[in-house]
Structure formats: C-alpha cells, structure tokens
C-alpha cells in the first residue's frame, strides 16, 4: 500500500481506539472530578466488561446480535453494581482519603484481576461481532485523466468498526446531556464544586458518590463490550486502557470531561498513527514520559484551567 492510504487506514484504526478510550477515560475522569478518587482499578472494570460480554454471549444461542445486545446492556449494569459494592465496602470506609484510596484500589485491582484468572482462566476468548460486513474504501488520486477515485487493495474496514465509533459518540452525547441538562447532573456538579455545601443543602453526598463510582465503572465496561469483538477478552487486558486513560485524563486536565474527550481523540488517533511508524514499546515509553512531564510541569493538564 502507498503512504496515503496507509495513513488513512491507520487514522481509522486510531479513531476506534479513540472512541473506546474516550468512554473509558471519561469514566475515570468523572470519578476523579466529582469524588477526587484516583481509581487504579479502573482498567479492571474495563476487563470485567469484556469478560462478562464473552460470558453472556456464550450463554445466549441464536444470532450473535441477540447475545451481543444483551451484553451491551447487562455487562455495564453488572460492572456498575460491582463498583458500587466496592465503593460501599472499601472506599466509603476509608473516607476517600487520597493516599489510602490509591492503595486500596491497587488492592481491588489485584482482587478483581486474580479472581477473573481463577474463574475465567488465562486464555484470551473471542466474542463474535453482531454484524461484520467488509466495506472497501475509496482513495483519490490525480492520474493522467485528472482527479479519480480508486479502490486500492487492502484499504477496507468493517461495518462494525464504524458502528463502534458512532455508538461511542452517541453515548458521550447522552452523558453530556445528562450532566448538563438534568437534575441528576446538577446534583453531581454541585457535589463536585463543594461536597460539604451540597450536603448542607440536603444532597445525599454518599449516594451521589456511589452513583458516580458505578457510572464511571459502567462507562469503562461499555467501552470494553464495544471493543471486545475487535480485540479479545483476557484477564490482563485492563492494563493498557488504565494507562491510556490516565494519560488522557491527566493531559486533558484532571476532572474536566470536555478536556478528557479532546485528549482521548488526540491520544487515540496519534496512538494508532504512531504505532504504524514506531514500535509499540517505544510509543508507550514516550507516552508514559509525557504523562510524567505534564504532571511535573503543567499539573492542570494541557487544556485544563487553573483551579482556585
């Protein structure tokens, strides 16, 4: 393939990474923004979503779309419920004290990951996509006859991959509307601004925290269910989304949802494109160093505003 079409296909793959990353990272971001909790176990909620999707689709016979549809609804709800339970049993008990919370969520990470290893096993398992039609993509060139569209060999994508991008955009739009236009969103934002004042005005802050933590985990799980027909479910798959989400949330400005989405698109796209030209290990080294240096020299993120 020539350079142009190659770059085009890389950006398309990057867009899928970006879409899933945006969902996962926004989950991490609202948890940090509203609760001030750095959830190291976030990647494991992502992994649980994928594993549950495999489990649910393997239970339901018939057309793959049926099982996948059920998984798309049920997996995030179950993962959200597990997260609410973790919040109730652990985080709430230590009063969300920042350093103890990180240590506790590291503990949760191991518990969730290793329990999955004991039950689900060490294999990677595939989930069938609900629909998966290959479509060839056109490419333009300026030949002797002027501008012309061609269909180079290998330049193609699938309907499912396009659907993932569309679905992620829809979900993020709905979340945006919920956060800005509904009473629940208002309560969440009030808690974010000043939890004590919110409590004084009769908002049950503990319930809000439980809901936010569940919602954050459910968003990660949703991203995982969407991507699992393209990747595979594996008990160690939570590591990369966790790292990438951290990068995105930190670069986008801690706790800023809009910044997170912008950064997710930026990082997801460049991750897809960079890994075409660099080895994945080098790309990851650069990414981790980038996070460290952004935190050191621009702690409010590249797009964040300084908080009072």
């Amino acid at each position, binding site marked *: 393939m020539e350079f142009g079409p190659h770059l085009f296909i890389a950006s398309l793959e990057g867009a899928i990474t970006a879409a899933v990353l945006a969902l996962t990272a926004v989950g991490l971001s609202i948890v940090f923004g509203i609760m001030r909790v*750095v959830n190291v176990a976030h990647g494991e909620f992502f992994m649980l979503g994928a594993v549950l999707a495999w489990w649910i689709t393997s239970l339901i016979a018939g057309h793959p779309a049926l099982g996948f549809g059920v998984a798309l609804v049920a997996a995030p709800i179950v993962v959200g419920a597990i997260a609410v339970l973790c919040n109730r049993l652990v985080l709430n008990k230590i009063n969300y004290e920042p350093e103890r919370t*990180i240590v506790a969520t590291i*503990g949760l*990470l191991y518990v969730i*990951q290793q329990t999955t290893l*004991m039950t689900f096993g060490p294999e990677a398992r595939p989930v069938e996509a609900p629909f998966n039609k290959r479509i060839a993509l056109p490419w333009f060139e300026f030949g002797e006859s002027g501008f012309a569209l061609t269909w180079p060999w290998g330049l193609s994508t699938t309907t499912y991959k396009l659907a993932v991008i569309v679905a992620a955009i829809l979900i993020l739009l709905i979340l945006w509307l919920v956060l800005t236009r509904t009473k629940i969103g208002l309560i969440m934002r009030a808690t974010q601004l000043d939890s004590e004042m919110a409590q004084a005005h009769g908002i049950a802050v503990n319930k809000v925290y439980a809901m936010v933590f569940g919602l954050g985990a459910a968003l990660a799980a949703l991203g995982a269910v969407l991507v699992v027909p393209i990747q595979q479910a594996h008990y160690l798959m939570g590591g990369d989304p966790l790292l990438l989400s951290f990068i995105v949330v930190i670069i986008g400005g801690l706790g800023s949802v809009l910044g997170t989405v912008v950064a997710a698109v930026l990082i997801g796209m460049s991750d897809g494109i960079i890994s075409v030209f660099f080895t994945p290990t080098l790309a990851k080294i650069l990414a981790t*160093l980038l996070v460290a240096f952004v935190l*050191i020299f621009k702690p409010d993120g590249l797009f964040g505003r300084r908080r009072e």
Partner: protein
Amino acid sequence: MNQAIRSSLLHGAVIVILAAMFFVLPEYHSGNLARILVLALFAMGYNVLFGYTGLLSLGHALFFASGMYGLGLSILFLQASPLLALVIGLISSVIVSAVIGFLALRTTGVAFMIVTLMFAQAGYLTVLFFGKYTRGDEGFVIQRAQRIFFGIDLSQPLPRYFAALALFAMGLCLIAWLVHSRVGKTLIAIRENEERARMIGYDVQFHKLLAVIISGTLSGAAGAAYALLFGYAGASFAAVQYSILPLLYVLLGGAGTTIGPLIGTVFMFYLIDISSEYTNAYLLIAGLVLILLTLFAPQGIAGLLRKKLSWLP
C-alpha cells in the same frame, strides 16, 4: 534502660536470631530467608521515604532494577568483578534516584504517586525495549564463576545466607542511626507537618531529595544483591509489581518502624509462597491484604506492637 540502649539491644538480638536461623531451619526455608533478607533491605529503603518522610512512591521497582541491571549488565558485558559491579550498581541507583527525585519532587501527594509510577513504567518498558542486551522478560543468568567475591562462592547456601544477612544488618544499623540523626529527625518533622518544618527554617526540598536518594540507593543495593546472590536479572523485577511489593511489606510490617519492614516481608513472602502452592492466582492474597490493611490496620504489625511497647524504635 534508656531508649537508645533498648533499641540497639533489639536490633542486635534480631541479627543474632537471624544468624542462628540458618542452622536451625531446613535448607528450603533458609534459602527463602536469604531472599527475604534481601527483599527486607528493599523494604527498609522504601520505608525511609514512605514511613519516615511520608512520601508514597509507586515507582521503587525502578531503583531496585537500576541496581540489579547496573550490576548484572556490567558483569555480563564488561566482565566486571563482583565488587566493581556492585559499585556500578550502587552508583547507577544513586544517579537514577537523584534524577527521579529532582523531577518528581516538584509534585506532591497524588501527583507524586502517579509521576513515580509513570517513571518506573517507562523504566520497565526501556528494559524491554533494549531486549537485545537485557533479554527482556526472559532475563539473563549470572554464571557461578562470576559470583565469586574475594574467594567466597556466593552461589553456595552458607556464604549466600550470610552475605544477605551482612547486607541486611548494615541496612538496619544505617536506618537505626539515621532515624536518630539530625537528618532523620528533620524527615520525620516533614512527615508530620511539612509547612511547619519549612516555617522553622528547614530546607524541606533538599531533605526530601536526600530521602529519595537514600531510599533509592538502599533499594538499588537490594536489587544488585539480589542479582549477585541469586544469579539472575529479569525485566519482571522492574515491573509495577515490584513497586507494589515494598509498599505492601512496609504497610503490613509497620511504616516508620525499624523492624517493621522485616516483619512485613517475612509474613507477605510466606503468604504468597503458601498460597501459590494452591493457585496460580496468588496475587489475590496481595490484593486482599492491601485492602484489609488500609481498612483496619493502617499502622501495620509493628505499629500495633508499639501501642503496647512504646519504646519500639
């Protein structure tokens, strides 16, 4: 008896008991104990930063690995003698901890944790990236012939055990001295109230950097000793798990106590050792212990003992 005499008696007794253990325990367990002593040195190094200075790092695997690879690579490629390799391992951990400390200490709290985590992750990936030399995850073996230290064959159980014990004893004495020194008292003052320490006129930033370097160098010494005594260096020692383990040892044993790291390492090592006989998901234990400790006993075992024995160092 005053406190200084009591604590030196305690430390002396710990070292004597550990020396006697080699002759009492069956070979399997004394082999384990040699590993535990090296890991306890790692935990003591971690404790300088976490327990005494109040800085929670999630990146100590980087310091452990810089000692380990400083020693391992110089033996492998420069045919360095063990002593020279040990010195190179120590120097590389001093340099790495100074650079990381200088950069990471510009942040505090949660940001410090994430920055150290990211640097350690970058270090781990760098070891993988130069897989041609480091052999990545597979690691490399340091041959027995290259582990003869002034005529003592460190691959044999007895010299290996006492080499580990000597190193541990040096670490313990250093820490016992440090915490009563001016520097150590300043570090504790920073842990208790950083603002106040600054107001009184201590150079907080300099002392924190000093703590990172002492902590990183002790961890690097443990890493170098691990490679030298057990003849192996691999990327898994640079992975995030080896940043979590010293935190776990110190939390379990008791942060800010001199013998806590040893207690925590012994307990955690055997918890993992025993549970790995039953399941491959032995890290589950590590996770559960972390959660239970943060929930119910943030002061650890030695911290609980200290409630009864207030003189415990």
